[in-house]
């Protein structure tokens, strides 16, 4: 049986004050799958990312990256994970190259090997000719692409992206979505040809490819549905993912037992 690239089990988190940001969240992200973490604003997506990257520790439950619990073996888990955060994290005053070299160093990749990989990644993202420019001079789409190139330098087998298209125009969004799908389809990140697993958080339903993607629908800290997009729509009794999403995230509590206690919150 294949070990999931990411496995969340019984995940709960509270920032204190009684409200649960996540409640018993459980789902998996399998190698080669483009999994969309769908949820309206405030559903708990960013909390989930903070837990998955070890920035926060869950109140209960765990996140395993290729079988390594992020709380217990953070080094092993982080070594296999590439992350693109929602907020921009590049140093604006440094060049693209300097930013990427810094990140490579954080993963212990030596200078020569780093330069080789950076060149390959930037070429693949059609960003190589901008390598010597300061990030400040780049537009939003290019900055995002540089962040994706950066997240792939250590050849992770899991790529986490937290609302990566925020602030991008439509062409840049399309390019980004297409590129990450291509990564997922085995467009050769890892030398061993392993297909990368992607967890892509968004609240924009049109970023999903309804035929091939997997979805995890998160609403008010709970996983409402997860699985292949067609299966999730069918289970919700809807024709499209968009309808299923609307039904699953309706403010009115659904009849499932999972929504008990929500009215009190």
């Amino acid at each position, binding site marked *: 049986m294949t070990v999931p690239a990411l496995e969340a089990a019984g995940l709960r988190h509270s920032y204190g004050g009684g409200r649960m940001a996540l409640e018993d969240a459980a789902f998996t992200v399998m190698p080669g799958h483009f999994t969309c973490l769908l949820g309206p604003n405030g559903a708990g997506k960013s*909390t989930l990312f903070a837990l998955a990257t*070890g*920035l926060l520790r869950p109140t209960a439950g765990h996140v395993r990256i290729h079988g390594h619990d992020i709380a217990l073996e953070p080094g092993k888990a982080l070594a296999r994970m590439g992350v693109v955060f929602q907020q921009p994290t590049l140093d604006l005053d*440094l060049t693209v190259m300097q930013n990427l070299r810094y990140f*490579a160093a954080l993963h212990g990749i*030596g200078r020569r090997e780093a330069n080789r990989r950076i060149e390959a990644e930037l070429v693949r993202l059609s960003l190589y000719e901008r390598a010597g420019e300061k990030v400040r001079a780049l537009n939003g789409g290019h900055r995002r692409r540089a962040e994706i190139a950066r997240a792939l330098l250590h050849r992770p087998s899991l790529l986490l992206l937290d609302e990566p298209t925020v602030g991008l125009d439509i062409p840049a969004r399309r390019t980004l979505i297409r590129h990450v799908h291509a990564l997922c389809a085995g467009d050769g990140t890892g030398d061993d040809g392993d297909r990368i697993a992607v967890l892509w958080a968004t609240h924009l339903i049109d970023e999903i490819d309804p035929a091939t993607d997997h979805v995890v629908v998160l609403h008010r800290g709970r996983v409402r549905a997860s699985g292949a997009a067609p299966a999730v729509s069918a289970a919700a009794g809807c024709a499209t993912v968009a309808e299923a999403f609307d039904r699953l995230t309706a403010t009115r509590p659904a009849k499932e037992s999972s929504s008990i206690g929500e009215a009190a919150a």
Partner: protein
Amino acid sequence: MTIWLIALRGIVAREVLRFVHQRERFLGALVRPLVWLFVFAAGFRAALGIAIIPPYETYIPYEVYIVPGLIGMIQLFNGMQGSLSMVYDREMGSMRVLLTSPLPRGFLLMARLLGGVVVSVLQVAAFLLIVRLYGIDLPTMAPLTVLPALLLNGLMLGALGMVLASTIRQLENFAGVMNFVVFPLFFLSSALYPLYRMEEAGPLLWWLCSLNPFTHGVELIRFALYGQLDGQGLAVVAGATLLFAALAVRGYSPARGMGSRAPAAG
């Protein structure tokens, strides 16, 4: 082993690059102590006579006395500024990137701290050059002998800044930290006036100055400039560094979150 060194080099190089690219920050770091030296010290020279106290062997003009204090000031501002910028969201973003490294968090934070110290040493080097051009005599070897003291004092102040950045939530702007941290640390120290002068002013002031770890950092630097070791200063600064560093690492532990704050909703 090499992985650690590569990461350490990368983190320090980034701090230096960032500093070099921010010209205003470099100028600001230099102008502040120079104003004190050229204006304050020149004016104070007539008002304040200083007895012969170690490590000085003769009567010294006030400008000479104040140099170690201003070096301490450069490091104080650098430590507070570098670490407090972590509080801001953009910095929180780069902090997240730092913490996605598979290396232990304590190591990453200490490497980042060391990067800030290296930047402060560059600032001090530029300051010492101007001091020499201004005509203040220091031993020829002073830039070398002072280096270990600069490293330790920089680590202490940087770690203190990290502790503040991770624990004190209200002081998100630099003005607050100026009033409640930087000014008390600076004025209640031996940076501007010798401790014996404080003793004459009153026992409480003297007591506060003696307890202030910044006083000991300044004295460590003062003796090191003249090729001497201030044993008490070394002990206090080393102890305070360990304490602050431990608190800083604890403040950024995953169990308590990124300085205990919730990420942006989403």
